[in-house]
């Protein structure tokens, strides 16, 4: 990935607003790659779109991953150790305890550091397992369209989609162990069982639209085997969707694991941000003003989720360029040298800041850049993209 190098694209500091991510202009012959996805052509670097959302999301996610690895090691105290037996009142933050203490004088900061590992591990485990499931089921269902296998798999996905997941998980975890689950791998896998359906549905829809494309048809006519067509023709073109559904599932995993731990279904001594919230709730920290106890874990969960959601939005904007135009402000427009770029939305005109010289690939995606209203056409000096070839609506695919 070449995030932040900013040299081959003129280094405008635009954060890549409007750069479709289909490879920089110095790699000619890429040809117009059909949206919704740009195929990572073999032998080339995969270019991640350098939108500020993606950069910020990746940075935050990286920080959380580092926290997950080193957190329990650098924690100043043991998260379960009572540091004083005489005091029964949570202490506010001090020099000795940066985030204060709990009811039984445990160090909140240490708990926060130690709890990150379990939370992030479970979230990513469930994300990975659910993504594998959804690719297997979604892509095969889409590829086998029209046969009973597709009907069956779609039905299965729909079933898991309408079933309220959290109550189901509560029942499962309730029966699993009376003192609460402690095994991160097991928890992650169980959460994954309820979290794959959304991704499978989106992937099935995308596979359906891909399988009738010419290049897939020709691969089939040549006599490629089914699994090979899927693995080398379809799957690479599904990558952005897979990535998006992976992030979505990790986000789901964070929320679900935290909720389960908050309910006390995970052993409270198994430190995670959810179990910290469980213990805080147990002594009514929120109505007693012990903000230092419940704000850190809750904020950590929220920020981790925000990082994942931001990455997801970045990918969405990458898949569907029309969502992206919102980022073009007057300042950015001036910087890019686009004169008279409409600051406000103009009907029929999607302003896209393009770095010059415009990459050939992006220009062809832009198809016919006409169709602007009378008012807007005066300002058509700025590049207007009517993304006719853009994918179906992101939201519609998901539903």
């Amino acid at each position, binding site marked *: 990935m070449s995030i932040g190098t900013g040299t081959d694209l003129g280094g405008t500091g635009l954060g890549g607003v409007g750069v479709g991510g289909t490879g920089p202009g110095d790699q000619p012959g890429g040809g117009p790659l059909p949206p919704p996805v740009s195929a990572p052509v073999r032998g080339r670097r995969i270019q991640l779109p350098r939108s500020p959302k993606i950069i910020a999301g990746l940075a935050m996610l990286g920080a959380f991953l580092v926290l997950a690895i080193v957190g329990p090691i650098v924690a100043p105290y043991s998260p379960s150790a009572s540091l004083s037996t005489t005091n029964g009142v949570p202490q506010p933050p001090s020099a000795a305890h940066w985030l204060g203490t709990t009811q039984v004088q445990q160090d909140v900061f240490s708990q926060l550091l130690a709890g990150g590992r379990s939370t992030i591990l479970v979230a990513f485990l469930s994300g990975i397992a659910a993504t594998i499931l959804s690719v297997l089921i979604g892509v095969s269902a889409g590829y086998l369209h029209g046969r009973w296998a597709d009907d069956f798999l779609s039905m299965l996905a729909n079933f898991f989609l309408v079933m309220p997941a959290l109550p189901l998980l509560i029942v499962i975890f309730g*029966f699993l162990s009376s003192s609460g689950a402690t095994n991160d791998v097991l928890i992650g896998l169980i959460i994954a069982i309820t979290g794959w359906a959304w991704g499978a549905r989106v992937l099935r829809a995308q596979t359906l639209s891909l399988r009738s494309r010419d290049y897939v048809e020709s691969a089939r006519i040549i006599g490629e085997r089914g699994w090979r067509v899927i693995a080398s023709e379809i799957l690479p073109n599904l990558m952005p969707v897979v990535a998006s559904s992976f992030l979505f599932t990790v986000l789901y995993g964070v*929320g679900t694991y935290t909720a389960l731990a908050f309910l006390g279904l995970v052993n409270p001594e198994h430190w995670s941000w959810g179990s910290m919230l469980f213990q805080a709730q147990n002594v009514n920290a929120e109505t007693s003003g012990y903000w230092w106890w419940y704000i850190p874990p809750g904020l950590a969960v929220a920020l981790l989720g925000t990082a*994942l959601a931001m990455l997801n939005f970045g990918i969405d904007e990458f898949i569907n360029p029309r969502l992206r135009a*919102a980022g073009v402000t007057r300042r950015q427009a001036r910087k890019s040298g686009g004169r008279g770029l409409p600051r406000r939305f103009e009907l029929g005109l999607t302003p896209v800041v393009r770095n010059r010289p415009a990459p050939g690939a992006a220009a062809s995606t832009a198809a016919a850049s006409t169709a602007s*209203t009378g008012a807007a056409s005066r300002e058509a000096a700025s590049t207007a993209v009517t993304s006719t070839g853009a994918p179906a609506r992101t939201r519609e695919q*998901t539903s």
Partner: protein
Amino acid sequence: MRVIARRLLFYIVTAILAVTVVFFIPRLMPGNPVEAVLSHLMGNVTPGTIRSLELQYGLNSKQGLWGQYMTFWVHLIHGNLGVSTSYYPSTVTSVIRGAIPWTIGLVGVATVISFVLGTVLGVLVAWRRGTWLDNLLPATTFFQAAPYFFVAFIALDIFATRLGWFPTGRAYNQLDFPGLNAAYVGDVLDHAILPAATIVLCSAAGWIVGMRNVMVTTMDEDYVLVAQAKGLAKRRVVWYAARNAILPSVSGFSLAIGFVVSGALLTEIVFSYPGLGWILLQAVGGRDYPLLQGIFLIITFAVLLANLAADSVYVLLDPRTRQEA
């Protein structure tokens, strides 16, 4: 109509599957469900209790698995979900019946408000793209990612504990006389505002982003351009675009409603609101398996009904689905 009939069939099958799952989960887990339940009854055990539990689970009888399954269905159809162990000796049905009105009142109303509010805001944000309204989006990202109960914690701490504007929990004052008198109704509303606001704040974010994204795409459609070119008032143009853009939101309802209900139940817990979420917490705390199963079934059925309603609305809104039939 055929569309709806087909969906109805799907939901019926799903409901049957849900019941089957609930039947099998305790039997797949290690140990004997009766022992598991008994271990949490703590002294309240009489031979009669054991007998009724065994009957409930169909153990100890000569029935095979299939027979047990049938018995489970017969009990279910008669509304017999067993005896709650944490509210012993109340039955699961009566405990749930006491909690449901609160949940429907709070979660139902809050969900409708958030859907309407989120959709309208989403249209606005899309229409005024590039203005200050875009700044709403990062905030919605945060609220989409934050757990409902964490937002509830903060709301409770700030507005109830510190500022004292709202009560700190429960659905009404213990000293009230429940009934249709002004004091009681006002008190119930007073207690509902903060939890409802929390649910709306958290769930509206998803609707805003979803509606905005579809709206942005829809506004590039030719018919919107034509409407604008014909010189229709801007308001009418937005209306046409929004009417078409709302379809994915309605069909995405099935995905969202499960999340919203789950989040809302956790919100109830933070506010000690005596709805399903609260008895769910009691059931989890006391490992009250019969009650857990009952709550799961009730929530599943409610979500399926909400889905059916959303499907019907979709058919009403989109003539294409009617033509296919």
